[in-house]
């Protein structure tokens, strides 16, 4: 556990130092796995953990984005910070909803697995469509 946590911190630190954003997802996967694999916690702690992961990722990407010589007017960072905090906060209720739904006792079957897989594909397709629409607008 400690080794994995240390590795995650090291990867994230190296990524930030060398400005390589590719290190951040790896560190996130490691940190996420640290929480999920050992005990399978289904408490509100997992919700907070997920939001904290997003916050960590956002701050890490932001620090990599901010480089180069430029003059920055005061207050430029406030809207982004507020937006990130708002999205992190907005992610809590749906996470609680997912956590509550996980407690519902549904027998595992091929049909339910197929429905889940279809939902995942649909979710990703929906995101891709939204991204494309936004890029062309």
């Amino acid at each position: 556990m400690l080794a994995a946590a240390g590795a995650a911190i090291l990867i994230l630190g190296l990524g930030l130092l060398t400005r390589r954003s590719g290190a951040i997802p790896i560190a996130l996967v490691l940190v996420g796995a640290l929480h999920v694999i050992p005990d399978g916690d289904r408490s509100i702690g997992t919700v907070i953990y997920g939001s904290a992961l997003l916050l960590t990722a956002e701050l890490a990407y932001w620090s990599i984005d901010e480089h180069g010589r430029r003059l920055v007017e005061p207050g430029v960072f406030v809207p982004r910070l507020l937006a990130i905090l708002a999205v992190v906060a907005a992610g809590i209720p749906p996470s609680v909803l997912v956590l509550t739904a996980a407690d519902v006792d549904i027998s595992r079957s091929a049909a339910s697995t197929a429905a889940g897989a279809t939902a995942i594909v649909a979710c990703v397709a929906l995101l891709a469509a939204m991204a494309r629409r936004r890029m062309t607008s």
Partner: protein
Amino acid sequence: MTRYLSPRLHAYTALAAIALIGALAFGRPELAVLATPFLVFLGVAFVGMPLAVDGELELDRERVLEGESVRATITVSNRGAGARVEVRPPGTERLRTNARPIECWVSAGEQRAVGFELSVERWGVLAAGPAVVRAHDRLGAFTFERPVAGAPELRAYPRVDRLRRLVAPLRNRPVLGSQVSRERGEGIEFADLRPLIPGDRVRSINWRASARRGVPYVNMQHPEQSADVVLFLDTFAEAERAVAGTLDAAVHAAAALASTYLTRRDRVALVSFGGVLSWLVGSPGTTQLYRIVDALLESHVKPSFRWTDITHVPVQLLPVRALVLALSPLLDERGIGALLDLRARGYDVVVVEISPLAVGEADSHALPLRLWRLQREALRARFERLGVPVARWDRPHTDLDLVVQEVIAFRRHARAVPRV
């Protein structure tokens, strides 16, 4: 116009998809819980109002002197969602800026003006820009980049030095001016004495000389006349490094010579002889100086393999009594040939050699360079044998006044060959 998607959106999508698949495959809903904030983030990022930022570049002046500064203002208008806008200054090699890009927050529907100082490094018709405006949305998920509209032209005039002395032409035009002619006639400057002949005015009698010699003698003067000067700019080839080059020096010399000759009421014409032949018919006055400087701004070296000789220049541009002041790096055979041709046609030619050696730093002991220098020495000697002074100008190490002095000294001691 370019739009970018932050690479972290791809990473979040991949992470969320992996977590959801893991949750489904291993029956671990905690993974889905961990993925949910990322999915919410993606949803919020994609649903937001699109970015639409415009920029316009304006300069506070359209005309400026070389070495001065001009203020550029970029006005950013936001027609879309509030955005963090990064404005990159519109610097180029000839229009430099030390300003760093500026980032500011521009709310929806707001306009912001950002100013930069641009320093004009060299004369010419300069285009400001391209300046770039880059906008990031509130979450930094999307970036929108577009070049700023309007790249205004800036006319940067060369600094015109005033010369203390000028090369006097061998023959003047018979129009009143400030130049003391070599000929004899009515004027102020005493030239000689001669015996009185019928028709001479009584006031021109030199009574002392007449008393001494016993017969009436009259004074003769040098009349004050103006000159026809043709500035012959050789634009076939140029030695250039960064913003300094032989054409740059030639333009400065032409501007200084034109300015000084025109203040002496001489008639100055300009011939830009190169890949593109252009000219300005000779005329006196201040307006002509503006015309010449404007024409010089358009001067550039256009590589051409076409053989162009002096017969391409309109005859009325080259009056018979004109002093042809050639400003040439003596690098192209066509330019050299034209000057020799002019001399052969009996024109009073002076060559100011804009030294290409001042532009580049070369090993002075290298054999090819020594040979090339010898060739140039031979060329100078050839011109001088024909009575054409060749004065070398190493700008910025030598003052143009010294070059003019050198030509004056040559013409004082050397006898001009009347016709070759």
